[in-house]
C-alpha cells in the first residue's frame, strides 16, 4: 500500500511518463523478440516469435485446441479459480480474524497453518487424487488450499495490527467489546486483508497449473502442459501469455475494489 504511494511520489517521473516508459520497455522487448525470430538468431521451436504466436492464436480461436475452443479453456480455468478463490476468501477471512483475536484459537491452528502454508502444493497432488478423484473436486481443492492458507495468515495479522490507542479511543467513547470489533478492528483490518487477498489470489492462480496437471482435458494450465509434451512451444507461449494476462486482470480488479472499498488504505489519521 504505502509502497505504491512511494512509487507515485518519487521525483522524476509523472504517471504518464511512467506509463510511456513501461510501454516503451515492453515494445522494445517484443521488437527484439520478433527480430530474433525473423533474423533466425534463435530456433523458432525454442522461442517462437510474436507473429507466430499471433498466428497460432488466430488458428486456435478458429479451431480450438484439442477439440476444445480457446474460450472454453479460458472459461474453465477462470471458473475453477474463481470458485476456489471465493471459497478461500469466505472461509479464510473469518478463520484468520478468529485466530488474530483469540489466543486459544490461534494456538490450536497455528502449527497446522504454518506447516501447510510453505508446503509446495504440488506435493499434495497424489493425495488429492486419492481423496477427491480426478474430477473438479481435486482441482478445486488444490487452488483452494493454497489460497485459503495465505488468506488466513494475512487476516490473522491484520486483526492483530490495530493500534492500541485506536481501540482505547473507541472505548473512551463508550464502545462495547462488540462495537470495538465491528467498528474499529474490522475496518482497521480491511486494507491489510485486501492486500492479503491480492497476494493469495496470486498464489492461488499459480497453483492452477498444478491443479490442472491432475488429469484434466481442458483449461489453460492443461493446455500449456499438453502443448509442451508435443513441443508446441507456440501454444505454450500463448498459454503463458494468457495465464499472466488473466492473473494481472485479477489483480487489477482487486486494486480497483480496494480503492473503492478501503480508500483509507495506507492513510494516516
Amino acid at each position, binding site marked *: 500500500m504505502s509502497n505504491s504511494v512511494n512509487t507515485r511520489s518519487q521525483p522524476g517521473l509523472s504517471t504518464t511518463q511512467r506509463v510511456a516508459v513501461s510501454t516503451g520497455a515492453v515494445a522494445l522487448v517484443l521488437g527484439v523478440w520478433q527480430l530474433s525470430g525473423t533474423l533466425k538468431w534463435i530456433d523458432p521451436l525454442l522461442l517462437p516469435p510474436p507473429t507466430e504466436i499471433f498466428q497460432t492464436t488466430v488458428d486456435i480461436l478458429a479451431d480450438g485446441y484439442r477439440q476444445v475452443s480457446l474460450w472454453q479453456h479460458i472459461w474453465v480455468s477462470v471458473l475453477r479459480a474463481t470458485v476456489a478463490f471465493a471459497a478461500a476468501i469466505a472461509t479464510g477471512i473469518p478463520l484468520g480474524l478468529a485466530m488474530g483475536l483469540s489466543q486459544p484459537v490461534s494456538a490450536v491452528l497455528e502449527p497446522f497453518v504454518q506447516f501447510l502454508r510453505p508446503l509446495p502444493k504440488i506435493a499434495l497432488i497424489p493425495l488429492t487424487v486419492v481423496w477427491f478423484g480426478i474430477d473438479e473436486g481435486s482441482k478445486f481443492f488444490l487452488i483452494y488450499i493454497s489460497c485459503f492458507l495465505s488468506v488466513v495468515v494475512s487476516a490473522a495479522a491484520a486483526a492483530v495490527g490495530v*493500534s492500541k*490507542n*485506536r481501540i*482505547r*479511543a*473507541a*472505548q*473512551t*467513547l*463508550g*464502545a*462495547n467489546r462488540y*462495537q470495538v470489533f465491528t*467498528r*474499529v478492528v474490522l*475496518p*482497521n483490518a*480491511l486494507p491489510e486483508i485486501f492486500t492479503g487477498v491480492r497476494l493469495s489470489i496470486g498464489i492461488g492462480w499459480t497453483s492452477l497449473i498444478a491443479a490442472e496437471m491432475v488429469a484434466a482435458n481442458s483449461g489453460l494450465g492443461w493446455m500449456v502442459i499438453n502443448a509442451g509434451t508435443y513441443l508446441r512451444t507456440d501454444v505454450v507461449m500463448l498459454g503463458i501469455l494468457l495465464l499472466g494476462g488473466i492473473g494481472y486482470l485479477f489483480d487489477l480488479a482487486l486494486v480497483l475494489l480496494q480503492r473503492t472499498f*478501503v*480508500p*483509507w488504505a495506507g*492513510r*494516516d*489519521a
Partner: protein
Amino acid sequence: MNQIAQLPARVRLAGISKSFASGKQAATPVLSDISLELEQGELVCLLGPSGCGKSTILNLIAGFEQTDSGAILLDGSPVNKPGPERGVVFQQPTLFPWLSVLDNVTFGPRMAGVKKSVYLPEAERYLRLVGLQDFHHHMPWQLSGGMRQRVALARAWLPNPEILLMDEPFGALDAQTRLMMQELLTSVWQKTGTTILFITHDVDEALFLADRVLVMSARPGRICAEFKIPFPRPRDIEVLVADVGYGTLKQKILHIVREEARKSMAGTAP
C-alpha cells in the same frame, strides 16, 4: 473560576502507586503515592520531565490501566475501566480514517444509540466551536495535523464528559498551530466548563492554559510542587509574556522542572 472553587472535587486520586515489571527485572515503581483532586470546571496542567509517569496517571484515570494501590474516584465512585464520562485526547489525533469528520465526531453518541436528531445539532455546534463547520464530509487524511487534532477535540467533547483527559495533545504540532490550539481549547473550555486534566512538558503551555499547575518529580513520580496560576481570562499570550509576574512564575517552575529532569537523566544514565 473562583465561584465554583467551593464545589466538591469531581476527581480524586487517593494515594495511588503503580509500578511496571520489565522482563526479569524487579518491577520499577513509576508512580508513588500520588494524591490529587480536580474541582468542577478546573483546568489543571500536569507538568513534568519525560518518563516521570504523567501519562501513566492519565491512563489510570482513563481506566486503561489499573493502580497497584490507592483509589481513583470520579464523583465518589471508583474508576476501573474506560468510559464515555472520561473523554481522552491523545497525543496523536487517533481518528478513524474510514469515517468522515462528522462520523468521527459523532462516534460516541452513535455507539450509545443516541438518535441522530439529538446528536446532530450538538455535533454541528462542536464542529463550529473548533472551526470545522465546513469540513463535515472531509476524510481525516484530507486535513492538516492541527485540523485532525481539532476533530479529536470535538469527538472527545461531544459526549459531554465529566472530565477531559489530554495527553500532550498539541505536542506534535508546530509552534504557531500549537498556540492557536491552546487559544481554541481555552475558548471552548470557557463555554463548556468541562473539568480538564492536561498533561504537558512545556512550561509556557501550562502557564497559558492552567488554573493550577502540578509539577511532577523524576521517576518514581510524585507531585512535588503546586502553583495557582493567577492570570485573568481570557488570556492573551502577548500580554502574558510582557507581565513581570509571568516571568517570575515561569522561572520558578522551570527551575523545579529542570532539577527533576536532571535527576531523571542521572537516574537513567548507565
